[in-house]
């Protein structure tokens, strides 16, 4: 894992001191709210519906046990004993008091964490495939590049006041688990015919009120050219991005307005103008960073563990959990364990401080001290020996963390919605809870198979509803919540934007409508088709007919 150098440590400490002074001046009246707002936002502090909310960055979703323990400590000491893991691989605290925030940031700095780049019109915390570095289908670990981008973007004066916020996602795998085409810039490391690794570059994607998939702007970019090329993209955006209209200011609108071809041509022209001499120091820095991400010392293990095979035979629940929650690891004899934060009827992405501590302990014992946060609001123990899976599963069960539902109908993404969020038009969490209870019977959801249900509480789409196989958007009409359903979205390597199926539903009727959609799929699927495959074959009509005939 990356460790701060002296520069990083000093920078973060200085920011804490600076913010402490700013909070003091706000409390004693030297700063007005207008003056203070941009300062607090630069430190991840929002004012939400009922309280402040502090968003803490988890760069590329990677944490160690000490960091997770610190998050639990903060939840207990300064909040209400829990935190919310988000679709940006961050954690949010919902109840911090303003005078405590500098102390919280100081605690975070002790474990090399902060809340910088979690708000404002800057390049936000870079997100990554949550299996980065361990996935069996990966060309190369993308996290050293993500870290390089973090360093490059966090202090770059050109990028502190962009037309709008800017999100970059990166993967090194063939399967896209980071929804890269839904980002302002999406990067994928891949191998060419000569076995060299380089980037495929996508730009101009996004969710929000105008969902767009990023077109490919470069099929191949040498790794060492990454920052100059990104700089060229940012310059074109900075030059032409619409600062006059918030709703048109994202890069996706620019790419759409210019057309992918013209946008790419402009980027290439800008890129040709950029001097290359700064590449060398960047490569040295990349090497320094990459050393921190070198694969850990895995034990030399056989690919299959005989004791595991026996246990799988004997314990049906355990076998079900392994089937859904354990994924292929690149090292023989190891597995990637996905911990569901989606208990049936629970709040998606929320974890208690007890659970955080338990995960920290288990990561230390079983996962070489590493934890990941996924954009699907789950946790990952990336390095678990197969021989330890049974013991780990038992321990997870003691902390209500052994739900075997990864990728199933109850593994729902939901943003905080109107239970917390100041921008929301409707609630998301109770909707997720209701659907999860309705479809969450273990046998039933296994029978339904792969299913991504995603819920946002407003058009901003933090719940990624556009990328949901079943997407749900909460709106308000005449003082009542109502919900629009989209079908056929996907954030994977065959990304698509979901299509609205028709008029919305009241909160009372919504779960019935979702169940009708699921039942319709079950009735028409062929040869083990997943929901998404079936939808792509038959289109929306059978679902519309079923839903609007009965509701």
């Amino acid at each position, binding site marked *: 894992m990356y460790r701060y150098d002296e520069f990083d440590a000093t920078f973060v400490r200085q920011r804490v001191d600076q913010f402490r002074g700013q909070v003091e001046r*706000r*409390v*004693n*009246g030297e700063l*007005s*709210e207008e003056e203070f707002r941009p300062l607090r936002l630069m430190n991840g502090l929002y*004012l*939400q*519906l*009922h*309280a*402040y909310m502090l968003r803490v960055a988890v760069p590329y979703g990677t944490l160690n046990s000490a960091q997770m323990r610190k998050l639990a400590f903060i939840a207990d000491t300064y909040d*209400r*004993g*829990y935190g919310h893991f988000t679709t940006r691989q961050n954690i949010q605290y919902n*109840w911090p*008091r*303003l*005078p405590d925030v500098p102390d919280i940031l100081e605690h975070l700095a002790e474990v090399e964490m902060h809340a910088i780049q979690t708000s404002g019109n800057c390049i936000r915390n870079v997100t990554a495939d949550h299996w980065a570095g361990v996935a069996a289908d990966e060309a190369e670990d993308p996290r050293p590049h993500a870290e390089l981008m973090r360093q490059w973007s966090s202090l770059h004066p050109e990028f502190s006041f962009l037309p709008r916020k800017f999100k970059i996602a990166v993967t090194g795998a063939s399967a896209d688990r980071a929804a890269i085409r839904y980002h302002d810039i999406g990067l994928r490391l891949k191998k060419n015919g000569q076995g060299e690794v380089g980037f495929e570059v996508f730009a101009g994607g996004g969710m929000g009120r105008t969902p767009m998939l990023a077109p490919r702007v470069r099929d191949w970019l040498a790794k060492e050219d990454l920052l100059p090329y990104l700089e060229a993209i940012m310059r074109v955006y900075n030059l032409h991005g619409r600062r006059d209209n918030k709703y048109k200011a994202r890069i996706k609108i620019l790419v759409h307005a210019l057309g992918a071809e013209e946008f790419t041509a402009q980027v290439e022209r800008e890129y040709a103008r950029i001097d290359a001499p700064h590449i060398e120091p960047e490569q040295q820095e990349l090497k320094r960073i990459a050393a921190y991400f070198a694969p850990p010392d895995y034990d030399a293990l056989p690919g299959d563990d005989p004791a595991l095979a026996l246990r799988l035979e004997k314990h049906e629940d355990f076998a079900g959990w392994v089937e859904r929650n354990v994924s292929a690891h690149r090292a023989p004899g190891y597995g990637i364990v996905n911990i569901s934060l989606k*208990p*049936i*009827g*629970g*709040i998606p992405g*929320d*974890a*208690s*401080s*007890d*659970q955080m501590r338990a995960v920290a302990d288990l990561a230390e014992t079983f996962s070489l001290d590493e934890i990941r946060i996924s954009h699907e609001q789950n946790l990952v123990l990336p390095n678990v020996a197969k021989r330890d899976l049974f013991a780990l599963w038992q321990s997870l069960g003691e902390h*209500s963390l052994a739900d075997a539902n990864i990728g199933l109908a109850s593994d729902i993404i939901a943003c905080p919605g*109107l*239970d*917390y969020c100041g921008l*929301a*038009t409707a*609630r998301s*969490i*109770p909707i997720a*809870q209701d659907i999860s209870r309705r479809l969450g019977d273990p046998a039933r959801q296994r029978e339904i198979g792969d299913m991504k249900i995603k819920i946002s509480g407003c058009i901003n789409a933090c719940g990624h509803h556009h990328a949901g196989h079943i997407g749900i958007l909460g709106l*308000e009409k005449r*003082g*009542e*919540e109502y919900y629009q359903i989209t079908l056929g979205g996907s954030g994977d390597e065959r990304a698509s934007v979901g299509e609205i199926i028709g008029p919305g539903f009241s909160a009372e009727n919504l779960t019935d409508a979702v169940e009708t959609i699921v039942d319709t799929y079950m009735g028409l699927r062929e040869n083990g088709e997943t929901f998404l495959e079936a939808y792509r074959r038959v289109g929306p009509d059978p679902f519309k007919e079923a839903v609007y005939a009965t509701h």
Partner: protein
Amino acid sequence: MAKKITGTQALTGNRLSDGGVVFLASNGVWRAGLENARLAHSDEDIADLEAEGADAVEANRIVDPYLVRVEVRQGRLVPAAFREHMRTRGPSVNLDFNSRTNGQAASAA
């Protein structure tokens, strides 16, 4: 153009210290709970609320105060707008995590 203000109004804001939702009650005191709010029916009363709100901002106690329309429904005073209703009530989901009853929704709106 200023929004036309109609109906009974209360003045709400968030406390600077913890962001908590409060309403202007009597004598410049801000309290949680709409039932404690001082209600304004006339333009004059509304102007008074706003003036006291500005004082509270000046005194660094309250952030961004604004008027909300309130009405009586089934004998209870409630905000007219759904968002304000949610804001006044607090989250509708059970937050008692460490009791492991995570997720049992509290009473619906």
